[in-house]
């Protein structure tokens, strides 16, 4: 073990603001220091430090047995994570891009998600990695993967929007006894406006609890990840027309914090859901359904959504910008709903 700490894990110790990416690195580092059962697996995470350099310097400090460079075999090493978890370890698996989680779909949904129910015990595994568009990565380096897993009982899905949440939620995910899919938007990793001072103590944010990112009375926007920022921008625009928007940042998608959404809708009577993921079969549907079940009488207008369009993520920048939901889209839909 070397004495010097890699720079991306020292921001909080030095009292300096951290980027979203550094917050992730800090969470991993601190949890590995705290609990010797935690270890990392992934492609090129060792001496290369990972495609986004989240784990730069980890190999030197924690050694080969806890920083494991894997072959290109997302299914195989996720299955191996299950075995290690059975034996009491707490693997954190990195997908180089979360798009590559799809070869692990079988083992995640069939083996890992069903383990507790099958009487084989809980499996404390975190599968984390970069998601999302806007990077000109084309269809295979830009996906959001929540809806591949949202339908599977036994999994949790976390998708933070701020650096502080990224750290606090990742720590919770690692300490959770259940398998957690953890999505990190590439557009937040190094975004200057996401740089913030993190609480210096052991900063833990509970899973399953949404956050009110902005309070308001006229319209509820439920969103998560990068779209929290787009929605806050839209809310600022709407505020100039005296429209008071409440923005709810889900933070955890599964289990869904239904109570937080219901409470807000009972106040505003209007609900707009904003997600970056494509439209049909997106999470907006489940939220609309739950609001129908629990707060229909409070609705003063239809539940609406702003989403990406139903296609793969296009490669060209012009196409991708058109594909993704914009601030203007949120403003348009929000204004429409408020005036309904």
């Amino acid at each position: 073990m070397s004495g010097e700490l890699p720079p991306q894990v020292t921001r909080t110790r030095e009292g300096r603001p951290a980027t979203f990416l550094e917050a992730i690195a800090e969470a991993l580092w601190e949890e590995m220091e705290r609990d010797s059962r935690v270890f990392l697996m992934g492609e090129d995470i060792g001496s290369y430090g990972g495609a986004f350099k989240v784990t730069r310097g980890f190999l030197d400090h924690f050694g080969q047995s806890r920083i494991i460079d894997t072959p290109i075999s997302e299914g195989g090493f996720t299955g191996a994570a299950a075995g290690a978890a059975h034996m009491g370890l707490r693997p954190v698996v990195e997908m180089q891009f979360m798009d590559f989680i799809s070869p692990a779909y079988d083992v995640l949904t069939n083996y890992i998600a069903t383990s507790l129910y099958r009487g084989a015990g809980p499996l404390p595994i975190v599968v984390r990695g970069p998601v999302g568009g806007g990077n000109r990565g084309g269809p295979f380096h830009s996906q959001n993967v929540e809806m591949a897993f949202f339908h599977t009982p036994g999994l949790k899905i976390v998708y933070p929007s701020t650096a502080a949440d990224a750290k606090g939620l990742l720590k919770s995910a690692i300490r959770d006894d259940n398998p957690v899919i953890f999505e990190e938007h590439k557009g937040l990793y190094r975004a200057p406006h996401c740089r913030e001072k993190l609480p210096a103590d052991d900063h833990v944010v509970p899973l399953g609890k949404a956050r009110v990112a902005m309070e308001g009375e006229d319209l509820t926007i439920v969103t998560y990840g990068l779209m929290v920022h787009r929605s806050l921008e839209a809310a600022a625009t709407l505020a100039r027309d005296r429209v008071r928007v409440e923005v709810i940042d889900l933070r955890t998608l599964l289990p869904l914090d239904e109570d937080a959404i219901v409470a807000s809708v009972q106040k505003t009577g209007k609900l707009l859901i904003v997600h970056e993921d494509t439209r049909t079969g997106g999470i907006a549907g489940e939220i609309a359904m739950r609001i129908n079940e629990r707060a229909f009488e409070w609705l003063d207008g239809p539940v609406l959504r702003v989403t990406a369009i139903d296609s793969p993520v296009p490669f060209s920048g012009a196409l991708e910008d058109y594909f993704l939901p914009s601030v203007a889209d949120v403003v348009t839909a929000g204004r429409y709903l408020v005036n309904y």
Partner: protein
Amino acid sequence: MPGDATALSRGVVRDLLYQGFQARFLAGGAAKSAGMPFGVDIRTVAMARAMRHSSDGKGDLCSAGHLAPGPMLAFGATPLEFLRQLGRKGTAPAAARSGGRSWTDLRRGLIGWDGPPGTMTQVLAGVALAFAQRGQDRAALVFEEFAATETGGWHEGMNFAAAQAAPLVVVLDAARGAGDAGEGAADAIARGYGVDAATVSREAYPELFRTVADARRRAVQGRGPSLIAMLPRDQDDPWALHDAFVAWARDEAGVGRGEVKAIERAASAGVDHAFHRLDKEPEAAADDALVPVCTHDVPQPAWTRRTPPEPGWRATAEPQGFHDVR
């Protein structure tokens, strides 16, 4: 043959007889109704005996696979547990929420699976990785049907184990008698991963034992996983190997005729008792289906089905006609 040959043989005889008596259950139709043939192959029991068993969660781990659950006996499973599992009893492991002929009990080193082939090689590779990381004298043993080698998942698991030099012994099982594993097939596959390979056919017990014991020793020494292929046994008489082994244990391994009889009587009585007891045990209770899928979930029945909606969710009127259906 290392260790006390007689004691080991005694254990295997017991396992075999248990297997034999359980076969009665199948003949009685219960397994048919459970939709699964119950593989019997002495060789898998003998091989599993070469691992280190313990009931305190500190021994080796074994996944017996779908075909011949005999190895589970070696790891401490009881006939009653098998019968509960096949009979879908509420007393079954996991209250009959999951099927198959194997289940999970990590303290005894049992790890079960009823899903796609190949998966358990990945999982046991990770189990073995954990042993190696902690420097423990433990290894993992996985039985896969030969067809698992057709799946990409199996290859990824095997490759991972090889890359990590994980203490894993992989057996390609021909217990159902399928003629897949040609002589040399395992060798050829193993070469691609640079791991040791062996093929077992109708070898006598000591050879079967030694093959696995050697693979285990190499594995815990950090010399990586091994691949062992079983050639199909005689299809016509699935009990031939079984009887031959009992004869061998009696006549050559020093267990003795009287002792074999005694084990046989005890096993028979044990299985009888299990049948008897099984009859009295309840089916799984319907709402056992509602146990949580995550550790701290509160199981939530869907309200439109068994419970009325939350009070207050509708402002204008009381729900009507809700309780009169069931």
